[in-house]
């Protein structure tokens, strides 16, 4: 009986200590690996930390994409139609990356105010505005009409341009 009780005690002690280690490690790993999301308006207001991994998002400003002639360096501007954020990236942009489309970039904000992106994620969104960005704008006190109208206008312009060149959405 004693042996069994002892065994049980060991089981419990082992479980508790393992669980404690796991929880500690988990919290530590979570704390150092969480990427917060910021929109250009928040970054312009100085809310975002500098030189820490963050996510930022908005729309790719029309005619702002600039590819270096020699390398794969590319610069573009992400906007929420209130403030702009300059993004620099080296590499291949995703298939769905297009001017006037929503984009989320992961990278570090530099002291000079531009963002060095390690990762660019593009997605197609019918509202021409990622929901996080719309929410951030609302929180900053902008009425949805202010930017939605502008966004839709740019979106339509881009669609029209795509249609003209013959490779745009046909439906």
């Amino acid at each position, binding site marked *: 009986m004693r042996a069994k009780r002892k065994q049980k005690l060991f089981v419990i002690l*082992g479980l508790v200590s393992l669980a404690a280690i796991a929880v500690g490690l988990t919290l530590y*790993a979570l704390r150092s690996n969480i990427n917060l*999301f910021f929109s250009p308006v928040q970054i312009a207001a100085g809310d975002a930390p500098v030189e820490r991994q963050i996510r930022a998002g908005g729309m790719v400003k029309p005619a702002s994409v600039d590819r270096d002639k020699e390398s*794969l360096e590319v610069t573009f501007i992400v906007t929420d139609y209130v403030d702009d954020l300059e993004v620099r990236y080296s590499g291949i942009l995703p298939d769905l990356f297009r001017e006037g489309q929503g984009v989320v970039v992961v990278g570090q904000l530099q002291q000079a105010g531009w963002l060095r992106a390690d990762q660019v994620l593009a997605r197609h969104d019918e509202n021409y505005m990622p929901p996080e960005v719309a929410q951030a704008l609302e929180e900053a006190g902008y009425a949805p009409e202010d930017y939605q109208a502008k966004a839709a206008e740019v979106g339509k312009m881009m669609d029209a341009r*795509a249609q003209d060149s013959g490779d745009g959405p046909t439906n």
Partner: protein
Amino acid sequence: MQTLMIPEIGHLALIIALLMALVQGIMPLAGAATRRPLWMAYARPMATGQFLFLAIAYACLTASYLLDDFSVANVANNSNSLLPWYYKASAVWGNHEGSVLLWSLILAGWGFAVSQFSRELPRDMLARVMGVMGLVSLGFLAFVLITSNPFERLLPNVPQDGADLNPLLQDFGLIVHPPMLYMGYVGFSVVFAFAIAALLGGRLDAAWTRWARPWTNIAWAFLTVGIALGSWWAYYELGWGGWWFWDPVENASLLPWLAGTALIHSLAVTEKRGAFKSWTVLLAISTFSLSLMGTFLVRSGVLTSVHAFANDPSRGFFILVLLGITVGLSLLLFALRAPRVSHQVGFSWLSRDALLLINNILLVIMTVTVLLGTVYPLLLDALNLGKISVGPPYFNALFVPLTVVLCLFMGLGPLSRWKHTPARDLFKRSWTAGLAALVIGAVAPLLYRGEWNLKVSLGVVIALWVVLPMARDLWVKSRHADGRMAGLRRLSLSYWGMILGHLGIAVTIIGVTVVSNYAIERNVRMGVGDSAAVAGYTFTMTELASRRGPNYLADTAEIEVRRGDSQRSFTMTPEKRLYLARGMPMTQVALRPGLFRDLYVAMGEDLEDGSWAMRIQHKPFVRWLWLGALLMAAGGVLAVADRRYRRTVTARDPTRDSERAAIAAPREALP
């Protein structure tokens, strides 16, 4: 083509199936509770009928796809007349409504299989199992009919042509990945039903585990293959050569796999030693709950990904309620009926029992950490506490060390005996293997790349530590008077299953280790005539052209590849496609697969001066990832083929009677 009746017949069949699920969910359970054989006898015919009618409904939807009936909203949104027939047939599950229908069909299929292959099951046990499966089915069919009817018509404004299937899904992967994954996900409903039936009936003995184990193993094998196929698909389809992204949708499939892995091991202890009974039941409930949660995450639209088709909040809410009811009720039942664990079976700390206990603890910790990282951002968002994302570093930081620890114990598992293994024996059986693993692991990176690499060494050491002691064990066990072959043949199939499963883990670990540490990726600017050297290969662009496919336009590049100074060369032709119906661009990767390395070339962007940004990758040992998964799945299937599951199990095996569960409520002792 517009068809008159096919969608309506499908809809009707779906409703009939729902009614049958209702009967199957009520009558057999009520019959088992009141001991009325007639009521219990509803179970089998209802399961058969449900499967039949769901098959009809499913066939009707497929027919609508194949016949291009764009008056059906589901077809109009997800298909196109230009789509090849095999994509039309698989587009059925390339969308929300169709995929839940497939989910329900597979669930009914598992139910039908249980009703057919469990003839030796005691009548009331079968009734309870089938009743629980009927209830699960009822929930899902109600979900399909109320929120996601795939047969809805677009009348009278029938579109001319469909909006096309998402080009990302127009691939062989779509044909195989979802059905395999669902077979796994849904397959865990069987062991769940067995667990609930055991709680209801107060009967949880060795016979119970012998019924439940094969089903669990098969479901687990399907899930393993499904996850591997998903990883393989993402690898070549997304165009950047990743094979695991710790994306919430992937995690949603990994969670039931981890819990299921723990479950198949704890079932082994329950069968052989009669221990861990309530723990096994709890794991069975958790595994299926995690499957349901995965369905919720993927199908509710809370996540944004190719997998998340649904953006209708009522659907998410419905699944959440379904999940809440299932988890809540089963945990309540568990709390009420689970045995008070009397440690009637003691074991020493050096025994297979103890090692499997450690295996379970570690797997559960892994499940919890992945769950936390997956759900935490969603919870914060739901509570309006900010939008965050948890990146791969979090998962890697926890998952990798836990896997290493798991493998340390895994190496000892097959060497140990139940109940007690003297430390001296354990050491005697493992020290040569351990030493060999250490030495080989230490020199492996030197031989392979001429350079030390601690991570690679560690990976190789633990993989060998899993394999070598097992190989020694196999050598010892296969000794036989009639020669080695006779000895090998004498070993049980479930032993071979274990060997293959563990070998699979080791192979996957080697793959993960090597490809994560030695993969080379170069993004280069290339025009015709330019070349780039990557990992000893020279890639030269010889031609840029464009062509027209059945439903897309493509820019293609011809890349001539030469190894070192070799005279022989081969051509790789990556493409950038533009799918016409949606105006959506897609990267078609050129792959040169090999057992020891893959070459991977993708066209990035048109740089508009006649050159393209090209992504060239050298991926050593990447195939081992999926090869390992296939071995694991083969192990799972092999274990099921073991003789003892084919033997007709009498309802009460007198030799095992002493192991009868100490489950509460002995009043339900069986006739």
